[in-house]
């Protein structure tokens, strides 16, 4: 006696799932701003601020880069530098800028750097992002090296302001003027 078998084929097919994760250019800009934001916050922490800088809020200004302002504002507002609360200010016009501890000037606003420097020469650490900006008055300049965001510093000019770069910043700076 042979046992017979009727095969009803029921071959299930794997559902082709949507591939997880998408590449978004927006994410890329956000990632750059996250890095710049951390740098700015670390600059604030790693610069020795004289006594006269250590009262009131700690002001970080952002001029000409709304996305960076938004990122920094949500990440750092009310965090502390010493016992000072961080405030992030956004500036649309250079005339609005005053009393910042640190000011970021975007690449597209770099041409107004000298003007800003004249107005804020005693107090503010100006951070920019354009080749040769240190010689135009920026204390710190973001540069791209080996596909990474790094920074160079103008120690001479900062010394004149009576501020002192911490050793970590000096060690990590890609160039020192």
């Amino acid at each position: 006696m042979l046992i017979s078998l009727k095969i009803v084929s029921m071959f299930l097919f794997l559902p082709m799932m949507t591939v997880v994760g998408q590449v978004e250019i927006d994410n890329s800009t956000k990632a750059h701003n996250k890095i710049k934001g951390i740098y700015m916050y670390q600059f604030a922490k790693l610069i020795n601020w004289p006594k006269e800088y250590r009262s009131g809020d700690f002001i970080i200004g952002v001029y000409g880069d709304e996305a960076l302002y938004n990122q920094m504002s949500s990440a750092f507002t009310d965090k502390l530098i010493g016992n000072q609360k961080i405030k992030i200010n956004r500036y649309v016009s250079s005339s609005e800028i005053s009393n910042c501890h640190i000011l970021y000037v975007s690449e597209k606003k770099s041409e107004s750097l000298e003007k800003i420097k004249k107005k804020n020469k005693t107090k503010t650490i100006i951070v920019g992002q354009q080749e040769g900006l240190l010689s135009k008055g920026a204390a710190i300049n973001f540069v791209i090296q080996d596909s990474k965001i790094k920074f160079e510093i103008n120690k001479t000019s900062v010394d004149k302001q009576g501020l002192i770069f911490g050793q970590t910043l000096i060690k990590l700076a890609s160039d020192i003027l």
Partner: protein
Amino acid sequence: MIAKIKIILIFILFIPIISSGQGKYCIHQFKALKAYDNKDYLVAKAYMDSALVTCFNIKEKAYTWHVLGFIHYAIYKEIDKKNPSSTAREKTIESIKKSIELDTILEFEKTNKKILTYLAISYWNNCVTHLDTINYEKSISFYNSYTELYAFTNPEHELEQSEIIFNQELSNIYEKKFENTQSKNEYYFNEAVKLHKEVLRLDSLNYQSNMALGKLYYNLGVMYIFSLDDDIDMFKFIEVQDKVVDNFKISLPYFKKAYQIQPNDKETITGIAGVYHQLHETEKFMTYMNLLEEIKDKEKDKEKDKEPKINKEPIDK
């Protein structure tokens, strides 16, 4: 005297075995077949178990294992209702394989292979239905059973295609697990990568796996950035940036390969543009962004062409 009684008792006990085993005919097997016909599969199995113990030489016959295989199969199908964890399925395979091994004249070859093919498919189906973030380990086990059995029954067939499909789907599960776990367990990331690389070993021009690897490394780079703690030690911060850039650089050739395969795919071009943007290579970023715009414009033009247009030529001249 006692020794004589003992010998007589042993002789009496073995009478049924000797009587049923000596001839060609095995009463237990006959009863098993009858029970099978009556759909009393568990009874049929019990008779076959007795037959294996009592009937002489029965274990050497292909038919015995063929019958036992079908009884186990009926238990798997009718009693266990094809429960994926039913042991009857494995017992079916074991019995049928023994039958094939003993079937030198290929008397049962066709039906034996048919049942194994059916069970191979059942493993594949279980593999599919268990392929989720909770049951994926069972799915892997079912897939392995499927490949083993399918290769046994169809040695001439390649399993490449199902391996590609399974690897890609499983890697999606690992990717989801990687993205959804708080600790970002890199084991899942590495497993996803390993599976896609295996696909590319089989088919280097596989668009989906090239894209997936591009995205995996790209997104890992982005993830490292977004998970940075603001108070990170600056030296560590620089190290992380190195790691981030390495991942973007690894992702690029995969995106480019995908672009080579599907040059008009917007997602691929976005991927390449994204990497160049992350690497601060503005010129190259712009090149691909312009390419993306060109493709979008072409698509818009095509859509426009599809729209009905008014006939400006007079119909009657």
